Structure formats: structure tokens, C-alpha cells
């Protein structure tokens, strides 16, 4: 499978593979886009160095990178990042687990759907920063609060997608399982769950991005450590290069997490890509 198909970017109308003529090969590689990023960074450097953007809030890229490197080498950045990542994963996995369980129950048992659908629809649209103050009242400003915030926000995308996944299980698969005497919880575990897995992964991917956002927000509002706290306090202390370094760090973290996720997804759902590819032909 091509790299494009594996990446998480939606792949609209794939351009027909024409034999490369002239320099056309150039923009067919990933390096073309990477080169564009490098170009933008160079422009940044130039803009800051020549004073096009006359502001102390706009340091040269090279200075930001130098500071970033120092923060990495000194271990300071990792000191902030590690607790952040741990909170994020803690909340994310709790949210995903609950989302899958509730989504399966709602999709599979009418009782749970009737019970939980209204409350889901009421709670889901509330932006997480809005209930953050309430959560602080009950859980304080420590890890419990952040893990709760992240878990709660991660829950809904997984829940909704799992529910849709369960609803779209092919009835013929369910009937087939029934003729082999597979019913009830066994049916849920053996047929419904794997069949809904592509949907569940879609939800998990959305939730991963949400978890990262909520992690940073909750650390900016109330924390004494973490990457969100680091970025905000750098800005308040006029350590502008540190601030940019923190944001760059998040870019890298987000990128790595997503690549990791895609790699796992491709392994677990290899059958799904093959199957849908086959169906299309």
C-alpha cells in the first residue's frame, strides 16, 4: 500500500499515475512539502533578522532553535513534557475504554441507548474549557483534574463512533454467527467489536487530538508543571524563545503521536484496508 493511503490525510481523487515528465517527480515526493516548511522557516529567519517584523516577540528562527536545543539538552523540556504526556495518556486511555464500552452497550442494547443517548447529546457539545472551573472545584488543580478533563473530552468521539460502528455491523455477519450458536456477549465480543473496529479507530484518532488540546488547556489554566504551563509562563516572563520552543515541541509531539497511531492502526486494521480495497474493485 502506498504511503498516501496510509497517512491520515483524507485522500481525495488520487491523481492518475502518469509517467513523470521533467521535474514532475519533484512534487510527487513527500520531500517537496518538507522543503516548503524549510522555506517558510527561512523566510521567518529573514523577516526577523532584517527587521521586517520589528518586534521583540518575534525572535529569529535560529535563536528559537538554539534555545530549543539547550532546553532539550538540559533536560528541562523533558521534565515538563513527561508529566504532560503521562496525564494525557492516563486520561486518553480511560476515555477510550469508557467510550468503547458505552458505545458498544448503546449500540447493542436498546436499553442503554434509551438511557444514555439524551445525556450524551447534552454533555457532548459543552466545550471542555467551560466546565474546567467546575472540575477544579471538585478535584483541585492537580493531576486528578487534568486526567478527568482529558478522559471526559476523549470519551465522546470514541463513544459516538463506536455506536455508529455497532449499528453498521452487517446483519448477515450477525446471522452467520447465530447459526453457529454465537449469541449474547460472545457475539458482542467476537463479531460486533472487530466489525466496529474501523469506526472505533476513527473515534480514537479524533480523541487523540482532543486529548492533546485539553492537556495543554488544563495545564495553562492551572498547573505548576507541564508543557502547557511552560509555554504560558515563558510568555508571561518574556522568555519568548522558550515560548516558541514549547510550541515547536508540541508540534513534534503531535506529529509523533499521530504517526504512532497510524502505524498501530495499519497493523490492527490491515484486514479492513484490504477488504475495502477489494470491495471497491
Amino acid at each position, binding site marked *: 500500500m502506498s504511503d498516501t493511503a496510509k497517512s491520515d490525510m483524507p485522500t481525495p481523487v488520487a491523481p492518475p499515475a502518469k509517467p513523470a515528465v521533467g521535474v514532475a517527480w519533484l512534487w510527487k515526493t513527500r520531500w517537496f512539502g518538507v522543503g516548503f516548511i524549510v522555506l517558510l522557516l527561512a523566510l521567518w529567519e529573514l523577516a526577523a533578522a532584517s527587521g521586517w517584523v520589528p518586534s521583540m516577540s518575534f525572535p529569529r528562527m535560529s535563536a528559537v532553535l538554539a534555545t530549543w536545543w539547550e532546553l532539550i539538552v538540559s533536560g528541562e523540556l523533558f521534565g515538563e513534557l513527561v508529566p504532560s504526556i503521562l496525564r494525557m495518556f492516563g486520561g486518553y486511555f480511560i476515555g477510550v475504554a469508557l467510550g468503547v464500552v458505552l458505545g458498544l452497550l448503546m449500540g447493542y442494547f436498546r436499553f442503554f441507548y434509551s438511557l444514555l443517548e439524551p445525556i450524551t447529546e447534552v454533555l457532548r457539545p459543552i466545550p471542555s474549557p467551560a466546565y474546567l472551573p467546575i472540575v477544579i472545584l471538585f478535584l483541585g488543580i492537580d493531576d486528578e483534574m487534568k486526567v478527568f478533563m482529558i478522559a471526559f473530552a476523549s470519551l465522546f468521539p470514541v463513544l459516538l463512533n463506536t455506536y455508529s460502528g455497532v449499528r453498521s455491523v*452487517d446483519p*448477515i*455477519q450477525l*446471522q*452467520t*454467527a*447465530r*447459526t*453457529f*450458536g*454465537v449469541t449474547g456477549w*460472545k457475539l458482542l465480543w*467476537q*463479531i460486533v467489536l*472487530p*466489525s466496529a*473496529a474501523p469506526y472505533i479507530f476513527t473515534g480514537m484518532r479524533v480523541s487523540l487530538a482532543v486529548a492533546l488540546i485539553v492537556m495543554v488547556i488544563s495545564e495553562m489554566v492551572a498547573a505548576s508543571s507541564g508543557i502547557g504551563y511552560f509555554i504560558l509562563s515563558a510568555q508571561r516572563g518574556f522568555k519568548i524563545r522558550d515560548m516558541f520552543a514549547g510550541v515547536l515541541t508540541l508540534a513534534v509531539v503531535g506529529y509523533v503521536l499521530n504517526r504512532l497511531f497510524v502505524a498501530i492502526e495499519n497493523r490492527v486494521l490491515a*484486514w*479492513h484496508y*484490504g*477488504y475495502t480495497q*477489494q*470491495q471497491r474493485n
Partner: protein
Amino acid sequence: MVSASEPFLIIRGLRKVFAAPGGTTVALNGIDLEIARGSFVSIIGPSGCGKSTLLQIMAGLAEPTSGAVFLDGRKVEGPPRSVIYVFQQYTRSLFPWKTVERNVAFGLENRESLSRDEIASRTRQIIALVKLTGFERHYPWQLSGGMQQRVAIARALACRPDVLLMDEPFSAVDALTRVGLQELLRSLWRELGLTVVFVTHDVDEGVYLSSRVVALSRAPARIAIDLPIELVHPRDQIVTRALPQYLEYRGRLLAQLFADEGLVATEAA
């Protein structure tokens, strides 16, 4: 070949009525049928006549409005252990996340209390029987249509059912693949002493495969013809299909179907 006819599968006064927004539809209107152990019965009829509904009720996948199905003296309520249903849509009934061997082992893992080794060896055996050795680790969607339907048959046979209920199993494959599958099914039926109920809309297929053909009328379906097929075994796709006896069976069944559909099958002079 066919053993002494003790009624093994009994269908009594079966009615099925579907409630729809625009009124009710009577799909089956009092079907009575007795099927002997070890027989191969084809059910033919115009499309939409309720053939599949009848088969699903026999499989315990659907409930009759009234009447009942008895298997070996016991009323069918829910899928019986000794009956396996093979769907027409093999691409949808095979589990795409399981390899061929996992698909074939599915029934064994869930129905029987066998050790891992026993499951593995039985799976291997049955895969060899449908001539898919070498494809154990493939996924169903990597195989051709005919091969996929063989996986579905293997999965059904792995549990050593007494009865195989097949709903137009070969209608989605090309003509040559279909011949191969027909021969495979015939040999499995004879070898394993199965009772097969085979739904098809293809009269030729029904006559060639079966020891008995039951033609249903248009919905609300009743039995229009119940025809024992006394063609000798072993059969041959070319020789058997040219026998006068074969042609007579075929003619009678087609005439019934055409009449039922109000179809004029003669070219104007």
C-alpha cells in the same frame, strides 16, 4: 444412496405473514413438507416467492407466524446445533478480519469443546476437503468468489452438521466456477451423508444436484410441484444433463414456473 425415508425434517402448516406499513404480505401460505435423512432437496420458485424465508425458518433464524418445523422430532426454536446455514452473499457472511483458517475454525471454537490441536487438525482436514490447502493464512477477500464460497462451505462442514441449508449459494459466481462448486457439493453430500436443502432459482441446477425438487408458487407460496429426481448416481455435468429423463424433469418444472409467472416462452411464428 438415499437411506430409508424416515421423516427427518418436518414442516407443518407453515405460514409467514409480514406486517408492512402498506398492509400485510403473506409470504408462505401453509407449507407442509417432509424431508428424509440424507436427501438432497432443492426448492425452486420465482424470485420473491418466499424460498429464502422458508429456509430461514428452517434454520431457526426467523419465526413462522404459525406452523412449525421439527428436526429429528424436536421443534426448531432458534438455530439448532446440527443445522448450518450457508448464505448467498459469501463476501458478507465470511468474517473479513479472520483468515481462511480462522473463519473455518469459527464454528469449532464456539460449538464444540475441542482442544486447540483438535481444532487445528479438523480445520486442516476440512480445508483440504474443499481444496483450499495452501490458502489457510489468506484472508477471504484475497480469494476469488468461488474460493470464498468454498471457505463458507468448509466453515459450515467443519461442525459436522446433519443438515446444510443453502440459500442460492452459487448464484453470485460465474458459470464454470459454479460447475466446480456443484461437483464439490455433490461429492461432499454423498461422502458425508448430509441432508441438504438447497434454494435456487435455477431449474437446471436444482434437477442436476437433487434427489427431489420442490417448486413453490408465487407468493403467497404453496407447494406447486413435488418431484422426486430419479437420475442415477454418479451424475455427470454433460451426460446427465442430456438424458431424456433429465429433460423431462426440467421441462415440467420450467412449465410450472412459466405458467405461474404468466410468461409466454414461445416465439411468435
